[in-house]
């Protein structure tokens, strides 16, 4: 069974088709780099996969099930543009809240473990609004990985991260890969993405311009994909 099946997905905003007949099948354990220029439809596609938006046409299935099913959502971890954390709550309270919503057996214990993992255990009771940008980003990573998701959806995960947050994210991604998780990430940072990726999908004006395995040629010459299939 595929980890992710996207079939003939269209998404309209008014009359404008943001996605046109998008189809991608992703096998379990793959790391897909979702590439494309600004406005190509990467975030729209990720939001549809995450169940945050419905496609106008077509279907998306995660591990054979619909995206909005409760059991499906339990398997997805989303790291979007925003940190998705509450400024008025402490780091531990934020993680505990999501631990409860994901029905984890020991939400407090899991929150503490993730805070230690991301180097935030010393500020566990500090309010998020008092955190530096880097600390907030690490906490956002902790939230996305809190429930050991089987499918990780990362929207521009390396953008605006500081060095420490990048190191935390890379190490957690490596760990998730070792556990067999599937990762789909949209990014403009080609080098980081292509080094991690097993597969590449290039979106161009809402359509899939290329979809296939990542080759060494793509890593050696990061501009090759855009020159060959994109619009330069």
């Amino acid at each position, binding site marked *: 069974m595929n980890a992710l099946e996207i079939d003939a997905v269209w998404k309209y905003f008014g009359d404008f088709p943001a996605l046109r007949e998008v189809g991608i099948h992703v096998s379990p354990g793959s790391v897909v780099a979702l590439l494309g220029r600004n406005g190509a439809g990467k975030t729209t596609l990720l939001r549809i996969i995450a*169940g*945050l*938006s*419905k496609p106008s046409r077509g279907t998306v299935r995660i591990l054979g099930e619909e995206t909005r099913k409760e059991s499906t*959502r339990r398997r997805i971890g989303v790291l979007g543009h*925003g940190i998705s954390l509450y400024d008025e*709550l402490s780091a531990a309270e934020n993680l505990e*809240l999501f631990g*409860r*919503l994901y029905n984890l057996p020991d939400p407090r214990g899991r929150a503490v473990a993730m805070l230690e993992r991301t180097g935030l255990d010393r500020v566990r009771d500090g309010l998020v609004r008092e955190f530096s940008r880097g600390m907030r980003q690490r906490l956002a990573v902790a939230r996305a990985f809190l429930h050991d998701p089987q499918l990780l959806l990362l929207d521009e995960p390396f953008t605006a991260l500081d060095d420490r947050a990048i190191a935390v994210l890379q190490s957690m991604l490596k760990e998730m890969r070792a556990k067999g998780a599937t990762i789909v990430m949209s990014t403009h940072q080609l080098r980081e993405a292509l080094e991690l990726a097993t597969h590449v999908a290039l979106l161009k004006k809402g359509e899939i311009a290329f979809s296939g395995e990542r080759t060494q040629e793509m890593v050696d010459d990061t501009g090759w994909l855009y020159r060959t299939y994109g619009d330069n």
Partner: protein
Amino acid sequence: MLLRSALTIAAKDLRSELRTKEALNASLAFSIVILVLFSFAFDPGSEEIMEFSGGLLWLVYSFAGALVLNRSFAREKDNDCLDALVSSPAPIGALFLGKALANWALLLAVELVSLAAFGLFYNVRFIAQFWPILMVMALATWAMTVIGTMFSALTVNLRLRELMLPILVYPFLIPALMAAMLLTTDLLAGMSIWGNDSIWVRVLVAFDFVFTALAVVFIDVVLVG
């Protein structure tokens, strides 16, 4: 799962609000100021006051309520928290019910303080009828909360949401506010609401059931599309 998630979200909202007190303070200050201003316009303790006490109280409650309800889903937009909630396995109905419960508790707190202020400024004794008044407040505030929370979700992405929310909410609330005003006026005049007035209690109960059910069913369409 529905109730547990709803309580988790309600606790989160209450904790956030009690730490910032942004909506609570604004709402309380607004209702007290309005009550004080009206007390200059009318003769406290007069018969006239008793005739429109319910109307005055519920006008204050509904305008003060809009200040609390406006923040309900707007709070979730700040760091894209709404996305994390919607993508979590918590039933989306629980997200709505949790927010509605938190809003209900906050509004009831504001209303109780305003009721005490009303009694003080207008020389109206309500202690003998306190429990029936509290019941009417609980029912009508739930009506206000359900409609307000639903439209707060609907307007969360609008630039003029603070303006749009009252425009959308008040027309829907007319039956519930009408019932609450009539019942409160009668209770403050020392009358029972279990005679001819009981129809208005039933209107409030029916309103609460119907709109809660509709909101829980349609919140998914509102938030996800």
